[in-house]
C-alpha cells in the first residue's frame, strides 16, 4: 500500500471516506404506541416539522395503521435532532440508515 507512505495520500483517503459518509441517507422513524392521542401526534408533526395539516394527518395515520412512518430523511446528525425532539414530545422515535 503506497497511500500510507505520504501525507497527501493519507489526507486524500480521509477526504474520500468523509464524502462517502455524508452521502449516506438516514431516516427518523416514528413508531406507533397505544397511548399517544391521534390529535396530539398530528399537532406534534405540524408544530415541530411545520407540515401542513393533511401531511401531518397522513403521517399520523401511517404510524397508527402501519405501526411506523418515516417522518424525515437526511444527514444522521439532523435525524438524531429530530428523534430527540420527538422524545421530548413523548413520541417513540428511532434513527436508522435508509434502506437501500
Amino acid at each position: 500500500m503506497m497511500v500510507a507512505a505520504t501525507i497527501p495520500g493519507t489526507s486524500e483517503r480521509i477526504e474520500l471516506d468523509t464524502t462517502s459518509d455524508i452521502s449516506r441517507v438516514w431516516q427518523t422513524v416514528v413508531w406507533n404506541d397505544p397511548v399517544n392521542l391521534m390529535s396530539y401526534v398530528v399537532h406534534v408533526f405540524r408544530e415541530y416539522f411545520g407540515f401542513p395539516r393533511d401531511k401531518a394527518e397522513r403521517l399520523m395515520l401511517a404510524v397508527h395503521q402501519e405501526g411506523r412512518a418515516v417522518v424525515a430523511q437526511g444527514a444522521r446528525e439532523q435525524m438524531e435532532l429530530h428523534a430527540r425532539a420527538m422524545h421530548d414530545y413523548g413520541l417513540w422515535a428511532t434513527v436508522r440508515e435508509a434502506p437501500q
Partner: protein
Amino acid sequence: MTDRLVVLEITRMEAVHLAGLVTQFADLLTETTDATPDDPALARLVPDAYADDADAAREFRELTQRDLLDRRSTDAATVLASLHSVSGPTLVTGDEEALTKIAIIELDADTLGCWLRTLAALRLVLASRLGIVDEADHDDTDPRFGIYDWLGYRLDGLVRAAEGD
C-alpha cells in the same frame, strides 16, 4: 405558534388532583443516571433511538437523556405553577362548594407547550403502570383508568385549542 392565550376552565377539584399527579411525576424525574432507567415508565420517556445498534443507542442516550429529563422537570414545574395559581395551598378537600367551583387558567404559547408535553408524558407513565400495551387494554372498573381517560380528555381539549379548532 402565536401570542394567543388559551383559556382552560378547570374545577378546583381537578386542579388539586392534577397538581398531585404532576408532583408525583416530577419526583420520578429525579433520576440522574446516564444509563437506561430501571423504571419502565421512566425508560419510556427516554427510549432507545437506535433499534439495532446498542452502541449508537447508548451514545445518543448519554448525550440527550439528562437534558430531556431536566426539560420535563421544568415543564412539570411550569404546570404546577399554573395549577397553584388557582388551587391555592389552603384548599380543604372537605369543602365541596369550593372544590367544584370553576377556575380559569390562561396559558400563553410556551406554557401551553409545557402543559401538552406534561399531560402526554403523564399518560405514558400511567399507561406503563397500568400495563397498557395495546389500545384495547382498558378496565372500566379500575378507577386509575378513569384518571388516564380524564388526562386524555384534558390533553385532547388543549391540543384542539392549540390547533385553533
